[in-house]
């Protein structure tokens, strides 16, 4: 059972076992690799956020006065590419998943530690290529690389950006591969599938998408690069090709990819909700299977991004219909989370606040997804700010909230230090308010008809007031994101040492010391209990000390 002993500072752990740059850059310890990822994705998040702020500043006034149109186009393109491929897709899997999956299943490491390190290096190589691309002029195709603009018209660094994402894609594939093998082969004795934490289930589902989807976008980018350099005609209507083929191939990956972004976050939120309402998750097996269902159905709906692109009317019907199939398992999740709260014993620590934020914003983002999947409405709102608002609600309001919640929840385990709870709650509140202020007006803008990717709206001054709200909100949001960054760093030096299990949470990861030792477990754990056995934990801890807060 969990103990609340406060560790002596000198205890050997994965952080202090070795010192020196080399011990980090050549490590095969999944926990250290997770930290390498943490640092690198944070870097990219701030770059992407910086671009976002510039976008918002430009849109403060109708005219394109802060930056020229071509710069603006590069800004949103690289904002999208950085945020999607270099921040959100790797975020939770490569940081929290990497750190926690072996701990949660009682393994000493992932199945292929060296492959794990390789995937970080691939990510870094891709990242360096992306940064180099940005510094030498950038790219202006939109994150979607639509042909024939990207292959025959843009005169920016399309090839370099494409290759950067190609390389980073393999990092993502290898992460998924490693997780699937690990989850199948490395579970501790007694840890059956039905006892797995739902976080692990969510990552399993995510990995399926990474394995089967990412290669398709990889080959598509190869074709774009080839087409652009050699003019083969595969995507170029002038040479007999079909630009819609590109869109099919791109979205075959990029729609499922949105579930790469949201599923891990759903896993995080599940853990948090269970812990802070001291309950077993309502409908465990439904929540588990809905992750798989989302991953599988996610592959059936891609052409809902192409309703007005010139696909056949019948294909549009089918894809609209199928789009609703993903919404069902998503609904199942939302309802089960809500039901878990019922008769719980709920605390409002910072991770839980983020989880609440996730619940609300994901629901709104998901429901507006239903608007977009409805053919008649999509015709009007596609390629407007309605779409922008939809996906920021899910990706920023949902996935990113979940990521932050997870970072707070497991920070004591990762760093061995407690973060300042008061500041954390304040940050959660600021993020929530700033977020809604930024993105809610965009729904209205979208329905009014403001097209996305517009550097200049001086002929439509009626759009300005809503844009001012949005820009104001984004600065609030920026503050909200800077805060955790500051106090996490602060806590590494000045934070109180964390006990092994500060939240009295269920799950094998909390049975390791904080921070864990290099091989995680002294001896192989044997699992004899169900997941989320909070009743047993709380019985054993009548006199529980709630250290945080």
């Amino acid at each position, binding site marked *: 059972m969990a103990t609340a002993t406060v560790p002596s500072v000198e205890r050997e752990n994965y952080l202090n076992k070795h010192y020196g740059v080399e011990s980090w850059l050549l490590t095969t310890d999944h926990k250290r690799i997770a930290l390498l990822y943490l640092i690198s994705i944070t870097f990219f998040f701030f770059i992407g956020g910086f671009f976002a702020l510039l976008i918002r500043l430009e849109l403060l006034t109708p005219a394109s006065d802060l930056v020229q149109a071509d710069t603006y186009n590069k800004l949103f393109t690289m904002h999208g590419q950085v945020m999607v491929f270099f921040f959100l897709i790797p975020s939770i899997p490569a940081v929290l998943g990497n750190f926690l999956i072996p701990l949660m299943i009682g393994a000493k490491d992932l199945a292929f530690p060296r492959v794990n390190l390789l995937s970080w290096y691939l990510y870094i190589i891709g990242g360096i290529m992306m940064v180099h691309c940005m510094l030498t002029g950038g790219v202006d195709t939109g994150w979607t690389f639509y042909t024939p603009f990207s292959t025959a018209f843009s005169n920016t660094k399309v090839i370099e950006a494409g290759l950067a994402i190609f390389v980073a894609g393999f990092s993502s594939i290898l992460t998924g591969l490693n997780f699937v093998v690990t989850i*199948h082969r490395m579970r501790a004795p007694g840890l059956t599938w039905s006892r797995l934490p739902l976080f692990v289930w969510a990552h399993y589902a995510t990995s399926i998408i990474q394995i*089967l989807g990412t290669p*398709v976008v990889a080959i598509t980018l190869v074709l774009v690069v080839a087409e652009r350099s050699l003019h083969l005609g595969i995507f170029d209507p002038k040479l007999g090709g079909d630009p*819609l*083929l590109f869109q*099919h*191939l791109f979205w*075959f990956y990029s729609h499922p990819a949105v579930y790469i972004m949201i599923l891990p976050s759903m896993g995080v939120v599940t853990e948090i909700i269970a812990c802070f309402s001291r309950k077993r998750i309502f409908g465990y097996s439904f929540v588990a299977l809905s992750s798989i269902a989302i991953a599988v159905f996610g*592959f*059936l709906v*891609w*052409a809902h991004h192409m309703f007005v692109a010139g*696909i*056949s*009317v*019948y*294909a549009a019907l*089918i*894809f609209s219909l199928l789009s609703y199939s993903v919404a069902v398992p998503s609904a199942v999740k939302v309802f089960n989370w809500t039901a878990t709260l019922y008769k719980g014993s709920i605390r409002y620590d910072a991770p839980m606040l983020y989880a609440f934020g996730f619940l609300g914003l994901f629901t709104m983002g998901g429901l507006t997804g239903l608007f977009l999947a409805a053919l008649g409405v999509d015709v009007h709102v596609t390629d407007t700010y309605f779409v922008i608002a939809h996906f920021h609600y899910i990706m920023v309001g949902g996935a990113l909230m979940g990521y932050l919640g997870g970072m707070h929840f497991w920070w004591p385990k990762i760093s061995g230090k407690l973060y300042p709870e008061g500041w954390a709650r304040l940050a959660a509140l600021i993020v929530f308010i700033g977020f809604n202020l930024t993105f809610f007006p965009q729904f209205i803008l979208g329905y009014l008809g403001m097209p996305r990717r517009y550097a200049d709206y001086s002929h439509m001054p009626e759009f300005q007031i809503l844009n001012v709200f949005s820009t104001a909100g984004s600065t609030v949001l920026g503050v909200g994101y800077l805060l955790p960054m500051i106090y996490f760093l602060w806590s590494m030096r000045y934070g109180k040492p964390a006990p092994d299990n500060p939240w009295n949470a269920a799950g094998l990861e909390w049975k390791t010391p904080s921070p864990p030792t290099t091989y995680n477990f002294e001896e192989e754990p044997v699992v004899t209990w169900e997941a989320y056995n909070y009743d047993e934990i709380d019985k054993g801890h009548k006199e529980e000390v709630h250290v945080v807060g």
Partner: protein
Amino acid sequence: MSNHSKSSPLTSYFAVWGALLLGTFLTYEAALIDLGRFNAAVALTIATTKALLVALFFMHLKGASEKLLKLVVASTIFFLILLLALSMFDYGTRSFS
């Protein structure tokens, strides 16, 4: 995966090898006959048979101790067909209205 080799698997290996060579020959010959729309069907049927032979015997999918590997193969094929079928559906129905 291994350890099933009580009796020597050599015969099956050579048999499969022979079948694969035969298949190659057949594909080639069939392509020279005009079967109308069936040319492609025949070629793909032979190719799929050959691929199955390689997977089942050379890659030991047949003797695989668990269903897991078969599941991996089946679901991969499923998603591949999904990609092909759903995009072909668009191309195939663009003309009707």
